[in-house]
């Protein structure tokens, strides 16, 4: 608390230069927000507009007339509710497994006294650059591990990504040794240091990597198409793709009336699919507040 009070006190005494600086930053951020908001406005507006508005050239940033037909069509597609659930299960399972393995892997690799540390790190990094491609992975998962039609086929292959592991390791390394020393002098084991000091101090990076996992599991569908044949286990993105693909195929089969898949429906599909991942982000932001980590220990 004492620190915060002093900060506030100093904040009031900012110079004219500081004020100008603040002004520039706010202006720049407002500009950046306006530019990045553009595609979102376009997607949301198209998803809410009738076809005759959507078909017109130009951007559609604000709805002129509202039509919910796109959402009606998407939401009446019954499999999406099961698919939502499947995606949530997949994501939750994926995040938990990834976080556990990340902590277990990053902690030893962050310690300079791990024997052959360079070698182990390189062994992990090498997997970023040498991969046998999709066929051997498919054979491994379906023939050897027999994971077809299980959620494990979606969760295990991407459990620990070398890139993420190194970034977490880096955060662990940044934790001042002094904080761990006292615990060690009290005889704490490595396991205790990890669980009672390192992990509580690493909430920002845990939040970041958990978000990465969530985004990965939320958006990935190719593995589901390969490994899951039971339609009731499909993930959201795969089910939505089936909606989106109609109207894209240039086939000449005129025996059925071709249903024209319009952009309204496509964008409604997009909104339905990304809304949860967007909504969750503000809740994670409390872990990115300045000083949250050190404050937690000292406080």
């Amino acid at each position, binding site marked *: 608390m004492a*620190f915060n009070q002093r900060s506030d006190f100093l904040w009031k005494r900012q110079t004219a230069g500081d004020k100008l600086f603040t002004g520039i930053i706010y202006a720049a951020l407002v500009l950046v927000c306006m530019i990045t908001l553009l595609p979102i406005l376009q997607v949301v507006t198209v998803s809410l507009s009738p076809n005759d508005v959507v078909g017109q050239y130009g951007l559609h940033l604000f709805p002129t007339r509202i039509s919910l037909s796109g959402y009606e069509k998407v939401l009446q597609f019954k499999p999406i509710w099961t698919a939502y659930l499947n995606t949530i299960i997949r994501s939750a399972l994926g995040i938990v497994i990834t976080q556990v393995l990340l902590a277990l892997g990053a902690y030893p690799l962050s310690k300079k006294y791990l024997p052959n540390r360079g070698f182990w790190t390189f062994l992990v990094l090498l997997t970023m*650059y040498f991969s046998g491609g999709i066929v051997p992975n498919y054979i491994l998962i379906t023939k050897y591990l027999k994971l077809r039609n299980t959620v494990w086929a979606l969760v295990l292959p991407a459990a620990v990504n070398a890139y993420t592991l190194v970034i977490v390791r880096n955060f662990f390394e940044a934790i001042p040794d002094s904080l761990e020393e006292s615990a060690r002098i009290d005889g704490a084991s490595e396991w205790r240091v990890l669980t009672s000091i390192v992990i509580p101090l690493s909430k920002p990076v845990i939040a970041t990597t958990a978000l990465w996992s969530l985004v990965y599991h939320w958006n990935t569908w190719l593995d589901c198409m390969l490994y899951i044949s039971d339609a009731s286990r499909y993930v959201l993105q795969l089910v939505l793709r089936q909606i989106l693909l109609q109207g894209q195929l240039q086939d000449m089969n005129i025996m059925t009336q071709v249903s024209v898949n319009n952009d309204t429906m496509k964008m409604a599909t*997009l909104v339905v699919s990304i809304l949860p991942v967007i909504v969750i982000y503000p809740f994670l932001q409390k872990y990115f507040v300045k000083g949250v980590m050190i404050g937690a220990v000292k406080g």
Partner: protein
Amino acid sequence: MTIVGLQNVKPKRDTLLGQYKRHWALFVMLLPVLVYYIIFHYFPMSGIIIAFKNFRFNDGMFASPWAADNGLAHFKKLFTGMYFAPVFRNTLIISLYKILFTFPAPILLALMLNEIRSQKFKRVAQTITYMPYFISWVVLASIVIEVLSPSRGFVNYFINQLGMDSVYFTGDPRTFRGVLVGSGMWRNTGYQAIVFLAAMSNIDPEMYDVADLDGAGRMQKIVHVTVPSIMPTIIIMFIFAMGSIMNDDFDQVYNLLNAKTLSVGDVISTYTYRVGLQQMDFSYATAVGLFRNVVSLVLLTGSNFVFRRVSETSLF
């Protein structure tokens, strides 16, 4: 058990076996991760062999016959392709542009967000900049084409207002790389800023207070406190960026590329997609992947070497 932490302070020459004995707990922790990598990465890695073979589905990967030219036929096809040289060059140039312009953008955004005192504004700005990342390139590319259209895009509307002629940004070889870099930034900056924001939340507030007492202005605090504190993260991200120079963004390029901009925008992934995967040629695709990854690995280890010399941070 001995007091483990002290070994850190007083390094002692030890046999390797002795080290493992002493730090067995640490190694046991690492073990599940190593097992994971062996099963899910090193085992399928053997599939790289098909880059040197003519993969026949019935024979399997190992029994398939070796490719012609001592197994190098697929590499030969890649390197002697009519478009290999321009495509390789385009990939490098676009990636270097991206490192130059796209890499600093999320750092800058994170620094700006970090200076915002109003939590509400910060939260809103953070969320808005994060959102475009979730729009796929198929959709985003059509928005980019619309925004930049010479006949109806509003960017050209402003250009016309300034008394200049419209520019066909997405259909002109002179501007196309700029479109790739700019649209990539547009989509990804907010999302990429998260890791830097996470790094900033690790900074001890006391350091700012000390700087205040020294009479540092806000700019000086950024330069002398914030940036040095997140430098390890910046360096790691930079080394990774160097290592991904060969990994162009297929979805982005593929959805924006057209006949006029092929000469400057065609990259390895779009090129090999046309040549290989459409024809189920896994051997060729694997050969391309192998070539790409060897170059990437060289770039990664090279930049890692440099940073290990000039800073305390490096990957390994």
